[in-house]
């Protein structure tokens, strides 16, 4: 079992994701350069946070067309696991691996703070160690997390159970006040129809160790690692 963290020019959470997989979860982990067209046999691919290609044109737009993303696309289509965090989520949207798009936060401000997330799916490769309705605390740090799609597309997304995380209060109530960026229907994270591709704006890699004061993010990585170890 091998994990790969993609490095785009401007990625800045790549080492954090690498650290969690390599040192906290003791997995064979490697970096994958954006110009590579091979995933070097990796089973779990993480697209990290940051400002790939300086957010030129639109966040994630340039990265979505980089050589490594063609390989990630094939990996995803074959059922391989892909986790996109923050800018990685934006890249997945721009690449068409997940539906919808990001707009500038409704506040027009870069939002950097802890938020609460309600867990809506616990049967996914990335969420099987979570409990239904569980409330997680995770940091966000983004200017473009205002998730949007046409109303009928959002209805279809919800009907298919593809909304995985929603912004909520500490008590688990999904309210407008708990929404940090104006995202449609408080959506913080979604998956594809098959459930093997997950994107979320909050940063689980920044809350995966006791020393950081919060380990709520670790379950996402541990869930995926557990799934891959089980099929070995």
């Amino acid at each position, binding site marked *: 079992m091998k994990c790969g963290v993609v490095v785009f020019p401007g990625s800045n959470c790549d080492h954090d994701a690498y650290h969690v997989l390599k040192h906290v979860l003791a997995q064979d982990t490697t970096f994958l350069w954006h110009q590579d067209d091979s995933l070097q046999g990796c089973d779990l691919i993480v697209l990290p946070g940051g400002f790939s290609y300086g957010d030129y044109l639109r966040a994630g737009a340039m990265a979505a067309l980089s050589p490594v993303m063609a390989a990630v696309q094939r990996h995803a289509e074959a059922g391989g696991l892909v986790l996109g965090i923050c800018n990685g989520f934006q890249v997945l949207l721009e690449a068409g691996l997940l539906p919808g798009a990001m707009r500038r*936060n409704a506040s027009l401000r870069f939002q950097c703070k802890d938020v609460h997330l309600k867990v809506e799916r616990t049967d996914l490769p990335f969420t099987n160690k979570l409990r239904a309705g569980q409330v997680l605390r995770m940091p966000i740090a983004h200017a473009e997390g205002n998730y949007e799609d046409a109303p009928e597309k959002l209805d279809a997304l919800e009907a298919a159970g593809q909304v995985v995380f929603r912004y909520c209060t500490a008590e688990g109530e999904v309210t407008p006040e708990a929404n940090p960026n104006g995202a449609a229907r408080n959506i913080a994270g979604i998956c594809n129809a098959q459930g093997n591709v997950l994107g979320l704006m909050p940063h689980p890699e920044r809350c995966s160790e006791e020393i950081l004061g919060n380990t709520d993010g670790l379950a996402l990585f541990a869930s995926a690692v557990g799934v891959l170890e089980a099929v070995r």
Partner: protein
Amino acid sequence: MKARVTVYPRREILDPQGKAIRDALSRVGFAGVDDVRAGKSFEISLGTDDPVQAEQELRRMCEKLLANTVVEDYSVELLGAEVGVRP
């Protein structure tokens, strides 16, 4: 041939930047600005002089990269300086 591609947020979608700019215009004394949409403009020089081919190519560029059609619309304008032709 030169062309201008304009990309802007779709009408039905709230444009937070445009709204902030509208509010700022009101603050500096431009009364009566009802709405502002903030978008992007690209000036593109193409190797072809064929307006039909140019327009097709530009639209494909928009669909593939220049616009995110989930939240943005685009328009294509051939400036046609070299050939003097406008569709």
